[in-house]
């Protein structure tokens, strides 16, 4: 999971910017909240990738998690939408300007409950963006109700016992034909950073389901969304290196255990199995892996499924290269003659 980019080692990135340039307002989340470390990792990843902030838009729904975009990339346009409705806004924004990178942050309530339909349909449309779910199994901002990713039998102070099975957002994403599906843990900053970097280069929707403990309402050790659980149960299924187009491949892997997947513009993801089994380019295997893990309440992490083959929505829509939003009148208003012709045809 090492990032092969040399930029990560120095104080300024290829744009000559420091990491501080990628920061934004200070967080108002609880001290220790998993969401804070994820926001930091977005900063690290975009800094290391050397992204131009004005080429990125950051989006979210409503929730503690959805406040995160205020805490990174202060020079990017951001939009805090409605509870559960970030996917539709992202779809519109990234069609209006398909040259932009999109990074969305959502919560498990935001994505799994009210926004579930939008989430699934956005994934199905393959809108090119990084979609991060800061998954804490609970509604943080409204103070501790169960979300749809809470485990059966879990107990919360006010909400009592949860009787319903959890949604597995990775499984849901794969079933909806997502080509980049990963699970990680906010307590593992390196893994999170590496995933975000790869996700930014994926030519479609990249879903990152990141377990992100809510220290205020759901951090008891027996909760599968707690720091303690995450640290002791994390089973990494694979390791990977994201290789930017301009980089040389420096990491060496043993034969048979490594697989290179080429993304667009020549960047690559080098995958290495850790459990000796899982092939993340095999959809059926990914589904089985997740389903079994869910059954056994295993906390598997890694790049679970990777397939850059599907066209993104903008590609399928056959858009011109320039952003639609920036087109001058001359390219969006057909000629007077063309109207005359239509009018004549209706006479």
């Amino acid at each position, binding site marked *: 999971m090492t990032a092969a980019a040399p930029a990560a080692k120095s104080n300024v990135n290829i744009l000559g910017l420091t990491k501080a340039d990628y920061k934004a307002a200070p967080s108002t989340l609880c001290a220790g909240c998993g969401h804070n470390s994820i926001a930091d990792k977005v900063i690290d990843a975009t800094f290391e990738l050397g992204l131009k902030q004005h080429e990125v838009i950051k989006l979210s729904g409503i929730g503690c998690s959805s406040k995160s975009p205020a805490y990174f990339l202060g020079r990017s*346009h951001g939009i805090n*939408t409605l509870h559960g409705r970030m996917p539709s806004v992202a*779809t519109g924004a990234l069609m209006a300007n398909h040259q932009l990178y999109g990074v969305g942050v959502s919560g498990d309530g935001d994505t799994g409950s009210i926004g579930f339909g939008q989430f699934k349909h956005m994934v199905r449309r393959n809108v090119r963006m990084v979609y991060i779910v800061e998954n804490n199994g609970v509604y943080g901002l409204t103070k501790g109700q169960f979300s749809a990713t809470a485990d059966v039998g879990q107990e919360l102070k006010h909400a009592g016992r949860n009787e319903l099975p959890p949604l597995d957002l990775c499984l849901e994403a794969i079933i909806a034909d997502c080509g980049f599906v990963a699970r990680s843990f906010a307590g593992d900053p390196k893994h999170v950073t590496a995933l975000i970097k790869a996700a930014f280069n994926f030519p479609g929707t990249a879903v990152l389901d990141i377990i992100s403990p809510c220290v205020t309402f759901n951090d008891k050790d027996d909760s599968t969304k707690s720091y303690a659980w995450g640290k002791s149960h994390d089973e990494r299924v694979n390791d990977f290196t994201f290789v930017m187009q301009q980089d040389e491949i420096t990491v060496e892997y043993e034969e048979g255990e490594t697989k290179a997947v080429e993304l667009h513009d020549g960047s690559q993801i080098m995958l290495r199995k850790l459990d000796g089994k899982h092939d993340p380019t095999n959809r059926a295997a990914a589904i089985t892996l997740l389903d079994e893990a869910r059954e056994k309440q295993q906390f598997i992490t890694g790049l679970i499924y990777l397939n850059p083959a599907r066209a993104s929505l*903008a590609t399928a829509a056959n858009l011109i290269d320039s952003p639609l*939003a920036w087109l001058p009148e001359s390219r*969006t208003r057909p000629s007077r003659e063309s109207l005359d012709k239509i009018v004549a045809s209706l*006479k």
Partner: protein
Amino acid sequence: MALSEVAGSQQTERDPVVNNFSIMVATKNGSGSQTANTALLRALFKMGIPVTGKNLFPSNIQGLPTWYTIRLSADGFAARRPRSEIVIAMNPATAIEDYAGVEPGGAFLYADDIKMPMDRTDIAHYAIPAKAISIKHEKDPKLRGYVANMVYVGALAHLLGLQLEELESALMYHFKGKRKPVDLNMAVIRASAEHAAANYKKHDPFTVERMNKTDGMLMIDGNTAAALGAIYGGFTFCAWYPITPATSMPEALISFSPGLRTEADGKRTYAIVQAEDELAALGMVIGAGWAGARSVTSTSGPGISLMAEFAGYGYFAEIPAVIWDVQRMGPSTGLPTRVSQGDVLKTYFLGHGDSRHICLIPCDPYECFEFGWKSFDVAERFQTPVFVLSDLDIGMNQWMSKPFDYPDLPQDRGKVLGAEALDRLGGFARYKDVDGDGIPYRTLPGTPHPLAAYFTRGTGHTEKATLSERPADWTGNLDRIRAKFETARAELPQPIVSLADGAEVGLIAYGSAHPAIEEALSRLEQTGLKASYLRVRALPLAESIKDFVAAHKRVYVVEMNDDAQMLQLLRLHLSGVEGDKLRAANLCDGLPLTARWITETILSKEASQ
């Protein structure tokens, strides 16, 4: 279903009636009568006779009763009439009621397999050998129903003295010059016309004659006009979800855009996304508007309800968007294939909390085209969702229209700051009222400048767009948005007023009520009642409406809804002053208004004055 209103008139001997009557065809849904009806309509239109075609159809795909009405009006009146002089009954299920509904003195054409007592002596009767002729001309029994429709076209043509060549050109137009289907259909029409010539004795006074009242005019439905307007307005993004009667607007975008908006390399200058529902559709449109696209969606009542939260968001976060509400009859699913003006109040106030929205209200396809492009200018200028309130009658029926005028103004992209401006200004405050008109400046994502970015949110914020819960920030922001709204009030399309000299009575109406009002005004004048007329074209209501009310003693607000919704908005607009001058003249039965109803309603209210 009885389409008729209670008729007052008795049968009398009548002179020939030329180019001034209505034809109603009663068929079943999905029976393919559309080709027949549009060919008839077009033939008449190309003869220079002002016509309108209205389809009254059920919320169903096949087999239920449908009525298509063609009104011919030498005077150019386009409103629905309560009854038709000529009724063509092809559907046994409704034949008895269709029969009863023929205007006294009229004519009844019926498929000859319809058996029922036909004992009216005040109308003419003609049996159409629909089955016999269609069996002869079509071997495939599945297609015979379709062919049967051409039989009534032939019979009618004979009775009206409509030249078959006119029908042939109309069919050529319909089939885009393909000879084969034209010949097939013409063969049936000819056979039927010949049968009519041989068997009918004309007992009715209705005929058609060439005139020149449609020169330069076109025929179109409002949804297609709206789509063309959007294309010439430079729409770049559309998201939508199917719903009657709004569907044909985006479908027209889908069919016209490739030809008009594809670049040399075969790529498109627009994107159209079919969303998973209306909530997502408006979400996408808002997202695209935020990113700088000219962004539009089209829906009807249920979709408007689902859009409530996003509408409030767009209003508060100040994001341009255009939403067509092609109104149908509500509340709830209501009558999905019937017209109403029932969303006026709801759309104006859409969304929780304090908010109100700019609405444009076209009255015909011509204005649909105009507001189709103008709505983007309004949305981008005022940075807010703009609703265009059309309706099923305008949107889906065939209207005669002046040719559309090419936009006479360049696109108004609103107050957008680019990189150079930011350099010059050294920054900007997203929600600051710099110019005193309430309209702030925005930047678009992608602007290559370190000071361009800001954070958009639905929560309270400062002028700099940072989160704030301070009372003064909140009220200051709402005050500015209200100021912006007042700026809009003066700049939106103003009412069209025609003042009748010395009139005590004024009528206020809007949207598809317009043709019925025009006709009613002329009828009222015949009865000696002079009335002025103001047609509302936008919300918030123009200041000048107050003058109109002040200038009259009694003002009737004519509209098609149950709650007298525009009247309510007018009452609020007048702030309690002269509010008692306003009187409701509203009807909410799912049918387009008729001049007769308006005339009678106003006369009876005036009588009890």
